[in-house]
Each structure stands twice: as structure tokens, then as C-alpha cells.
């Protein structure tokens, strides 16, 4: 009972209820077919599995973005970083880059993620040391990133022929799609990290009031640097999944406009866009909501472009809910109490 109470108060409560609601809605309109999961060649197939597989990129990004937003910042360069990471991985595997490691998927992955982290470090450096506003600082890489990716691939859409690389998106372990494991491992790792260290507390504190946090002994600059590095690495991971999915690197379209979805996931998860307390699980729920809405809209036979309309309305609704001004107007009593 007490656990239930705690759950109801948690940030993840509403997003998870909404997610389940969407699933339920789908089940009803599809007369149960939605939930059906079939087993073929030892793999599970079904809409639900698709949601988790297709949503895995967004879930990774949402985790990185959650940290950045909690620190009071924003990172609009994640889509470009995805393009860079895919370009690097594919070029390495084909041997265009570091011919010595040609075909080494492992090295390709390490290099791609390292490149993502490096991009993040650049963003973090501009934000925490040069003290440029986060949106402006990450704008630079957002503009440059796709260009850099194109230069790596020499402006071509390159394809790779490597089953082990395909495995990142298309593979199965114990019947479940591989990218889901990536999400789960990262999520568990982060949960462990935030539970076993005081990182979460320091991050929230820095995002709410960086002056107080500094005086209390928190190294605010380092915390901020770290979240951008992590966000960059997470974006690189998402880029690898995407690139593996299309079996190559398409720098023009990889992760195009996905930064907006990532920010939206964090917001739908009920995390304040102004920074502070955060919930990773809630952001992941937010990502799943976006993904399941997409799936629903496809399933209902509605033209997919409507998804963006829905997203637009969602963004406005959520901002209005979070807006203090509106709540003062609607709930004067509550405002007065504060």
C-alpha cells in the first residue's frame, strides 16, 4: 500500500498512466490484436515489440536530454551528433577511416561513442567554462554537425556490409530486440549511478540554484560538463542504432529534427524544462508515449503527418500546464499559499 502511495506521488505516475492508456486504447480499437505477440524463429514480433524497438533511439536521447535539462540547459545538437556517430562507425567498418581497423565493428563503436562524447565535451565546455547560453552554444554544433558528418563520408550515403553491425538494431537476444537491451542496460546503469552516488542530488541542485550549490561545495562546472558529455555519448548510441537500422550512414536524414522529440519526451515525462528535479523513468515514459502515439496513428490509418500536429498541441499543452502565470490565474488560492 505504501509503495502504491509513493508511486502515485512520483513524477513517473502520470506519464506511465498515459502510456498504459494509449496501449489500452490501441488494444480496444484493434480488438486485442495490438497486444498479440507472435513467436517466429525464436523472436517475438508484434506492435508492442515494435514500439520498444523503434522507440529505443528516442529513449536513449531522452535520458541524455533529461540530465542536460535538469542542469538548467538544453542540447539542440543531438541530431547532428547522431549523424556524426553513424558516419564514423560506417566509415571505419568500410575502412575509409583508419584502414587498419577495417571491418572492426568493436573499434567502430568505440570510436563513434567517443566522438559523441567529444562533441558533448565541446558543448559542455562552451556552456560551463565560456558561459555561453546553452541553446546558442549547442546551436554551433547543430549547424556544423551534419556538415562534419558529410565530410567524413565524403558527402555520400555509404552502406556497410556487416551482419554484426546490423545486429545493433535488428538483432535479438532471448527473443527480444537488441536495442531494447541497450536502453535497459543504460537505464539500469544510470539508476545505479544516481542511487550509488550523489550525482542526482548535485545535478538537481545545480540546475535549481547554481550559486547556492557552489557555496555548498558542489563543483557545478564539472557537473554541467559531465551532463553534456553524457548527452553526446547517448546521442552517439542513438546514431549507431539508426545507422545500423538503415545499414549505412545517411548524414542528411539521420536524426533529423529528433532533438525536438527528445526535448518533448523530457517535457511529457513531467520534468520541468527550467531544470531541477528530474526522473529518468518519466522521460523514458515520455519517449514511449511519443513512439506509441506514432504507432497508434499509423494503426488507425490516419496520415502520419498528423503526428506532428499532435506533438505541436502536446508541447503547447504541457508548457501551459507548467506555466506559473497560468496556474496563478486558474488557481489563485494555491498561488497565494506559495
Amino acid at each position, binding site marked *: 500500500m505504501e509503495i502504491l502511495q509513493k508511486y502515485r506521488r512520483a513524477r513517473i505516475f502520470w506519464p506511465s498512466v498515459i502510456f498504459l492508456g494509449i496501449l489500452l486504447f490501441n488494444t480496444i480499437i484493434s480488438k486485442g490484436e495490438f497486444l498479440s505477440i507472435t513467436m517466429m524463429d525464436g523472436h517475438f514480433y508484434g506492435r508492442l515489440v515494435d514500439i520498444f524497438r523503434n522507440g529505443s533511439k528516442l529513449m536513449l536521447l531522452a535520458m541524455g536530454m533529461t540530465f542536460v535539462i535538469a542542469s538548467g540547459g*538544453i542540447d539542440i545538437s543531438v541530431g547532428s551528433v547522431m549523424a556524426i556517430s553513424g558516419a564514423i562507425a560506417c566509415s571505419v567498418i568500410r575502412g575509409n577511416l583508419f584502414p587498419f581497423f577495417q571491418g572492426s565493428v568493436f573499434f567502430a563503436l568505440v570510436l563513434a561513442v567517443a566522438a559523441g562524447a567529444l562533441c558533448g565535451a565541446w558543448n559542455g565546455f562552451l556552456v560551463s567554462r*565560456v*558561459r*555561453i*547560453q546553452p*541553446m*546558442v*552554444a549547442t*546551436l*554551433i*554544433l*547543430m*549547424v*556544423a554537425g*551534419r*556538415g*562534419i*558528418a*558529410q*565530410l567524413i563520408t*565524403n*558527402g555520400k550515403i555509404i552502406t556497410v556490409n556487416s551482419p554484426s553491425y546490423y545486429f545493433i538494431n535488428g538483432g535479438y537476444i532471448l527473443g527480444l530486440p537488441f536495442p531494447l537491451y541497450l536502453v535497459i542496460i543504460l537505464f539500469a546503469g544510470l539508476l545505479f549511478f544516481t542511487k550509488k552516488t550523489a550525482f542526482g542530488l548535485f545535478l538537481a541542485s545545480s540546475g535549481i540554484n547554481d550559486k547556492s550549490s557552489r557555496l555548498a561545495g558542489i563543483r557545478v562546472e564539472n557537473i554541467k560538463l559531465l551532463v553534456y558529455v553524457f548527452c553526446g555519448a547517448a546521442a552517439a548510441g542513438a546514431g549507431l542504432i539508426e545507422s545500423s537500422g538503415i545499414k549505412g550512414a545517411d*548524414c542528411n536524414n539521420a536524426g*533529423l*529534427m529528433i532533438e*525536438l522529440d527528445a*526535448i518533448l519526451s523530457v*517535457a511529457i515525462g513531467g520534468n520541468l*524544462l527550467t531544470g531541477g528535479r528530474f526522473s529518468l523513468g518519466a522521460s523514458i515514459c515520455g519517449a514511449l508515449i511519443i513512439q506509441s502515439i506514432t504507432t497508434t496513428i499509423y494503426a488507425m490509418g490516419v*496520415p502520419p*503527418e*498528423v*503526428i*506532428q*500536429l499532435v*506533438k*505541436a*498541441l502536446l*508541447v*503547447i499543452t504541457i*508548457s*501551459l500546464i507548467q*506555466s*506559473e*502565470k*497560468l496556474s496563478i490565474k486558474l488557481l489563485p488560492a494555491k498561488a497565494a499559499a506559495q
Partner: protein
Amino acid sequence: MKLKRTFSEISLLTITLALFVIMYGAGVLFYGFRISTFLNLFNDNAYLIVATTGIFFVLLTGGIDISIGSVVAFTCVFSAWLLEKGFSAGFVIPLVLLIGLAFGSLQGFLIVKFDLQPFIVTLAGLFFMRALCSVISKAAIAIKNPFYLKVALAKIRFTLGRQHPKIYFYALFAVAVVLGTAFILKFTKFGRTVYAVGGSEQSASLMGLPVKRTRVMVYGLSGFCASLGGVIYSLYTLAGYSLQNVGMELDAISSAVIGGTLLTGGVGSIFGAAIGVLIQGLIQTVVTYQNLNTWWTKVTVAALLCLFIIIQRAMSVNGEKARKNRLIKAA
């Protein structure tokens, strides 16, 4: 001390202008740029100049509008669709301009009234308009309206020796928009209020200026200019396609920054922003001449962007230091 002061006094506009002249000069020397190269910068970027003008107002107040690329696309698609349905240009053009104005004003209203972040609101706007594009038509629609065809091809040709450079009417129109904007910003109360709001919103309202109204208006203007840019773009391409101009807002913002606009608001010149567009066009031209990967354009633009942002930051830090130095003298 003296040196520092003179440095901060060199306006960013001068740097931008010098950059353009040097780049163009180098182009003349190494690639044999002609008059037509120069005029084509206007012909090819007229729509971007107009759209940048709109976002420039917003940036001056310290806000941001990332919906303009979608608004441009919507304008093209919607007008192409209406024209295809047989509506006259005299009906379509005012209608799309009105929609742009109304849409921008609505965004501004939400931002100002409910104190929402401009980035988030215009992000929703971006999604919304892009979705409307695809709802109208996913396929590209060609424009065959006679009026559009006529206007699209209207141009002035010069004869300079063996060269025959030409400039299209819509490019001249873009120049007119820039001049008009410069005039509004310099000589009207609205224009000065825009600068004042960007300098210090609090001071501006203490001095009795209509801060809120002005902030809503700049978003309205931004939407209006974006749809105007859209009309020019549909003249330029004679088509409307739902996936065109993705990321155009970035080009516009980078142009403004390279043109010396401070993203924190209050400082910037419309001529600088327009030159910023031309610089991007020049980079594109050089990249084409050199037969380089076109993506060098983006990378170069980003490098310039980074350079200008860091110069701006250094200037404001210098300003703080100078003020502090005076304090020390006082102590």
C-alpha cells in the same frame, strides 16, 4: 586600456562587412567572380534575406523563432495548392501573408501572455506548420499560375561590356524589405522600442514603453516576413513541397549572428544580417567553384558562427572587467 576600448567600439557590423569584402575580393582574384556573381547572391537568397529580416526583429528583443522554415514551406505548399485549385494570385498572396502574420502573432501572444519559453512555443509552431504542409499535399505541386510565372521571370538585365548580369524583381523586392526595415528600426517609435526591450526589458517598461505589445508584434512580424519569404521562394522555385526549407531557421539565425546580432538582444543591424545572408551565399558559391563537398558550406558557416559568438562573449566579459576596474579605482 585604451586599446581595449577602441576594440569594443569597432562594431561587429564592420567586421562583417570587412569579411564580406575580403571574401568577395578573394573570389574576384581567384575564381574570377563577375558582377553577375554578386547579383546572383541576391537572386538566390532573396527569400532568406526576407525571412532573416523577420527573425531579426525577434532576435533584437532577445527572443527566438524557430518556426520560420516551416512557415516558409507552408506558404509555398498552401499557395501552390490554392493556385492549382484555380484561385487567383490576387487572393492567394494576401491570404498567405495574413496567415503568416496571424500565426506569428499567436505564438507571440502565448509567449508573452503566459511567460512561456520562445524556443518551446515556436518549436510547437514548427511542428504544426510542417504537419499542415503534409496534410495539404505530400507531393510537390508545381505552380503554373500565369501571374506567378510572369513575376517570377521579371528581371532587369544590364549590359556591361560582354557581361549581361541580371537581377530579378523579387530580389529587388528583398532589398526593398531590408531598406524598409532599416527605416522602421531607425525612425519609428516601434523600432526604437524593439531595441530598448532587447537592451533591458525592465528599464524599457520603467521608461513607459509598451514592452508586451512590442514583443507580441515582433513575433507577428517574424511570421509575416516568413510568409513573405515563402511567396518569394515559390516564385524562385515555382513549386511547393512539404519537405522544403527544413532547418532554414538555422540559416536565418546564423546570418543574423554573423551579421553582428547579439543573441541576448538589443544589438544588431539589419544590414549586417543581410550581409550575413550574402556571406553564406558567397561561401556556397566558393564551395561550388572549388567543386568541394557542399557540406563545407555548413561547416564554414558554423565556424564563423562560433567565432562571432565567442567574440560577442569576450566583448561582454571585457565590459564587465572594465566596470570592475573602475570600481577598483574607486576603492
